[in-house]
């Protein structure tokens, strides 16, 4: 190996290290100072304590917000996957005029700013006299998640899927059996991927949750409220819990999809 090659390898390693440091340092700082033995979550690091986690878990508002976030995430993701599947199945199976245009129209809201969606919904709910609540937040999250769930599921209903259905019918399955025994199980990885992505978007979402909720805050809104009164290691601890749950969900999804894909021949 020449000196030039060696220096290129070193330069690559240095560049790579900075790259990852840049991406992960905010998370590392957040996690590190959640263990800060002191009242300010900033350098210098004084020592290790778990007391802020104790406070975070004892904080009724934060725990309520956590439960609200999970509830909003699960219901909006389930609804998005359900509606997205029906739309994808219908568009893929029945020859409709303008099917491509309809598909694009369904995906288009994904390009809209959340602020626009939130304000539009705010005006709408005001007009129909629907009070702001977790329900309105859920509806808002369905608006942002449906295009994503649809796009993922639609991309997985290919022509090989058509043959699977035909094979099931050929072997005597009734339509509901085709759906329950073949279509849905064969698409399970796509459903898991769609659900996980929807949930993490909802879990993380601030603007819609902020503008469309009133008394029941989701976790991002609750954290934002706390930050307004100054930095505090409790917020770091809460943020670390949020990050840990996201990471767990991510790892679960990856492992489920990886387990299904393990194959010597594909």
């Amino acid at each position: 190996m020449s000196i030039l090659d060696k220096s290129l390898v070193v330069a690559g390693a240095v560049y790579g290290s900075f790259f990852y440091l840049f991406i992960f340092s905010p998370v590392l700082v957040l996690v590190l100072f959640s263990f800060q033995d002191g009242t300010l979550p900033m350098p210098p690091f004084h020592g290790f304590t778990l007391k802020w986690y104790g406070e975070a878990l004892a904080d009724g508002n934060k725990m309520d917000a956590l439960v609200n976030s999970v509830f909003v995430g699960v219901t909006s993701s389930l609804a998005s996957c359900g509606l997205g599947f029906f739309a994808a199945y219908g568009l893929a199976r029945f020859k409709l005029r303008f099917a491509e245009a309809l598909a694009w129209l369904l995906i288009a809201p994904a390009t809209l700013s959340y602020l626009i969606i939130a304000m539009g919904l705010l005006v709408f709910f005001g007009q129909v006299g629907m009070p702001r609540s977790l329900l309105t937040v859920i509806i808002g999250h369905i608006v942002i998640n449906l295009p994503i769930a649809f796009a993922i599921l639609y991309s997985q209903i290919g022509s090989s899927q058509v043959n699977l259905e035909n094979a099931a019918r050929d072997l005597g399955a009734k339509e509901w059996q085709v759906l329950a025994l073949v279509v849905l199980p064969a698409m399970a990885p796509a459903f898991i991927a769609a659900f996980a992505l929807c949930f993490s978007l909802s879990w993380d979402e601030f603007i819609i949750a902020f503008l469309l909720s009133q008394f029941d805050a989701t976790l991002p809104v609750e954290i934002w409220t706390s930050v307004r009164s100054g930095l505090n290691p409790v917020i770091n601890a809460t943020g670390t819990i949020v990050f840990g749950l996201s990471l767990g969900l991510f790892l679960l999804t990856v492992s489920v999809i990886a387990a299904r894909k393990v194959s010597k021949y594909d």
Partner: protein
Amino acid sequence: MTNAVLIESLSKSFGKVQALKSIDLVIDEGQYVVLLGPSGSGKTTLLSILGGFLGPTSGRICLRGQDITGLPPAKRPTATVFQDYALFPHMSVRDNVAFGLRMRRMAKRQVDDAVDRMLELVGLGNFGDRKINQMSGGQRQRIALARALVIEPVVLLLDEPLGALDLHLRRRMQEEIHRLQRKIGSIFIHVTHDQEEAMSLADKVVVMRQGNVEDCGSPRRVYLHPATSFTATFMGSSNLLNGIITDIDDGQALVETALGHIKCATQQSVHKGTAAQVSLRPEHLRLMNGSAEPALVKGNVSDLVFHGTHMRLSVTPEGLDDMEITVTASADLDVEIGAFVELVADHTKATLLCS
């Protein structure tokens, strides 16, 4: 009762495109039928209509005397082996094979017995609990066969079943499917564009082109005496010579071609003075070594391809520069491009084609 499958003036149009143009076909019990044709010939459309996945525009299909034209796939005594196998990826090998029987609400013990027997038959006795994605291409092919055959269909439909396999495996599976069909005795209808596959499997070859049946008969008959010029060139290769019928005598027609007179057998009624085409297979010509027979072709070798078992020469006849005659020769023949050769034809094998 020998006419197990009867297809009567079956047509299918997709918008303005006529995929099938009034097909008539009779299939006997226990026959292995191969639908052979290039892409766009309508062979897959015909198979889909037989399976019930497509409805015909007109015409009807009878199976053992029962009109099944309007029946959905589940109600037909047919089963299909799909080109991509369409195995259920989330089920084990055993559950795939058992699917059809479970849909028929057969008792669990009977299902288990039938599945075991079928897996044994296709040589996958020990693989029942494997996942589909742990199986190789050839094994998947066998699972697809087992899954379709276990419901004991009267007719098994195979849509290019060997298309996804490499050549070696394809030839082996070909033999296996053939053996299986002989053992089970049900009707197999198999779609392919591989003429070698068609010849080695079929009791009956149906050559299709642009929605029509071009020729239909035993592989031997179709190969040796093709009905049309398309069949002559699609089933193997052939030298087609245009000419005029100058004499007819006792079932033999004398055709005047650019190469001179060729005598050929004819079953059809033909008339003196009409234009005709003669098909001469490359193996029905041979290089002459001082034989007494008059040479049909004298010319120079313009191309030479080695095939292992034999060589194939292209010969340009003297004075006919835009014509090329193909001939097979023994693999150890010492000949080079440009060499002058004389060819003799086996006139008994020349076939007169209807226009």
